[in-house]
């Protein structure tokens, strides 16, 4: 979407942005944005999506630099826009955050750092993790524990990692004033207590709010379809869906793992529209799997809860956890997660 040609109030988007909407937040600074999400007709999620493709920007990324993002379990959060954040101040932020964490540790709060006070905080940008040029740059925060022996040979150990990004988020967000930076997706790996503390610092400093991102069974079924549709040279892991059965008094988990080539064959047979995936195709794909299961076990999986989906591309859990396994579709996975994050932001 080229912002110079399209008039500000397009009929498709209904509600025009009003200045006063930006200042009705409950925060004491009254800077929190009330809502950034573009109003879609009837507030529905899209019924068709583009098949995840390699983003042209991703070709510039050095695969070595983003290798550490893969094969790690990330806990997902949504983040409201940050006020007053600037990419030129990253070094200052490192120092401020480090002082904050050191102070909290001195107060006696549980801070998992490794050796006492011998840690450093780094803020750095992650180039290439964006959908279009209009997406703000992703950035990374790491807590590195320095070895007490202080010899140059011992490696620093990364204790906590968190990164902020927005992939194709631009098309879903209202025109945001310049002092706000919109990176709605936050991923964290490391001790929960550290995530909470660092989140508190961000919330105080930039007047934003974190919330855990939950992935509904509906979104998980989209992930199953989208990731099965991806073309890979080599399918490492089976396409696995994990269902949790709400029966009492004992819980029951059903793991349904399909050979990845067979899952792809089923998808290819279901998929009709070129370049796009529709809701009907997703439903049909899941229905086919459920009915094959029903043929053998006479159990209706649709009456149970889909909690986890795992493929050669990525694996996701309903509690808001993701593990990305394939660098080729990293941007595609992040794009879908960004969309989910934006829809969850109130």
């Amino acid at each position, binding site marked *: 979407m080229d912002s110079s040609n399209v008039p500000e109030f397009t009929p498709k988007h209904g509600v025009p942005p009003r200045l006063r909407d930006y200042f009705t937040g409950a925060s004491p600074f009254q800077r929190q944005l009330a809502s950034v999400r573009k109003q879609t007709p009837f507030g529905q999620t899209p019924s068709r999506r583009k098949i995840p493709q390699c983003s042209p920007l991703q070709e510039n990324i050095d695969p070595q630099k983003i290798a550490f993002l893969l094969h790690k379990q990330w806990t997902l959060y949504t983040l409201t826009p940050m006020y007053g954040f600037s990419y030129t101040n990253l070094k200052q932020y490192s120092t401020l955050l480090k002082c904050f964490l050191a102070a909290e540790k001195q107060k006696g709060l549980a801070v998992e750092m490794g050796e006492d006070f011998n840690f450093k905080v780094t803020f750095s940008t992650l180039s290439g993790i964006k959908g279009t040029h209009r997406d703000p740059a992703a950035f990374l925060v790491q807590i590195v524990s320095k070895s007490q022996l202080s010899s140059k040979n011992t490696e620093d150990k990364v204790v906590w990692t968190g990164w902020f990004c927005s992939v194709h988020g631009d098309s879903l967000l209202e025109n945001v004033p310049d002092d706000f930076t919109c990176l709605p997706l936050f991923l964290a790996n490391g001790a929960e207590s550290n995530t909470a503390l660092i989140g508190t610092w961000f919330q105080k400093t930039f007047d934003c709010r974190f919330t855990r991102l939950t992935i509904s069974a509906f979104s998980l079924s989209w992930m199953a379809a989208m990731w099965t549709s991806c073309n890979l040279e080599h399918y490492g892991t*089976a396409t696995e869906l994990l269902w949790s*059965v*709400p*029966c*009492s*008094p*004992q*819980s*029951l*988990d*059903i*793991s*349904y*793992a*399909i*050979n990845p080539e*067979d899952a792809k*064959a*089923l998808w290819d*047979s*279901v998929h009709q529209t070129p370049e796009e995936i529709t809701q009907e195709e997703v439903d*049909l794909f899941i*229905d*086919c799997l459920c*009915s*094959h*299961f029903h*043929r*053998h*076990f*006479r*159990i*209706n999986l649709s*009456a*149970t809860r889909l909690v986890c989906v795992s493929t050669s591309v990525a694996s996701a859990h309903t509690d808001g956890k993701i593990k990305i396994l394939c660098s080729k579709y990293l941007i595609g996975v992040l794009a879908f997660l960004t969309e989910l994050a934006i829809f969850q932001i109130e």
Partner: protein
Amino acid sequence: MDEIVAEFIRRTILKIPVAEIGKILRIWNFLSESQLKTINLQQCKENVSQDVVELCKKKRASMKEAAILDIIYHQTCQIKKIWIVYKMTKAPGEEVDLSDMEEFKASFKKVLQRALKNVHISFRDSEDDAVWIRIAWGTPYMKPNQYKTTYVVYHSQTPFVFISHCQIKKYIPELWQALMTAGNYHKIRQMELRSLYLDSLKAIVFKQYNQDFQTYYLTPLEEENSEAEIVDPRIIHENMKEKERIQRVTRETFGDYVQPRIEFAQYKLETKFKTDCKNGILAEREEPFRCLVKFSSPHLLEALKSLAPAGIADAPLSPLLTCIPHKAMNYFTIREK
């Protein structure tokens, strides 16, 4: 007393939950009652185990007695080990063997020790006519490692053996040979049945699960509720007939007794893909649609039993699931007929 034995006894006591230590030491019957009285069980476990080791040193305990202590610990406490069931078969035409347990033990020990040097074997009988065999494996150049042990449970006059393997897997053929020779059997095969709960495996394999007399009647509580709620006799439960049918069918399939406890069942599906709808999806595909389905639950059979009444499954439930206790299997491969 050797340091290795002392350390082994110390570590074994540390593993036992505090509440069971007194009981297990009494069953062991190595230390006298007066000696046991001197142990203060209220102190921390490290001190308790030190006290026990001191007493054992005075009595000069050897590895033989320490091994028995280990067996009693395994027999008494619920250890998280997977037990696999094996079935031995006789050669056609061979008669039922009437040898007794003592002959079995002697023969087993002789055969295994002849095949392998440095293997430490201990026996202990249990109440249900079974013998527990503990085997610590060594190599021709190293003494047996008492921390890497395999347990075998064998009921005399039955063809079933329950084995809990340790990490050392290379002596399995020698173990089987010893079992077959001692029991006078011709072949041994691994059954598709394994679980953490030895008692459940025994119940399934010896078909004892349906002799439990706990039956589920329509509880008096339910009847009271129905009387209190129904004000107008014209108000009935809409799907009463269907609900009753489901209850009846479930009871017929699973019985009224408490199900034996297993925690997972695995199915390898290699059938063709077929759906009811006429979309023709994958219709031309000849190759099987390969899947692996795994059910897990703290008490799988009870959970499956509750599915049809909850409306999640059709009644009767698929025979693939209900046959688990009857066929004594929980690992299946399903192919097209």
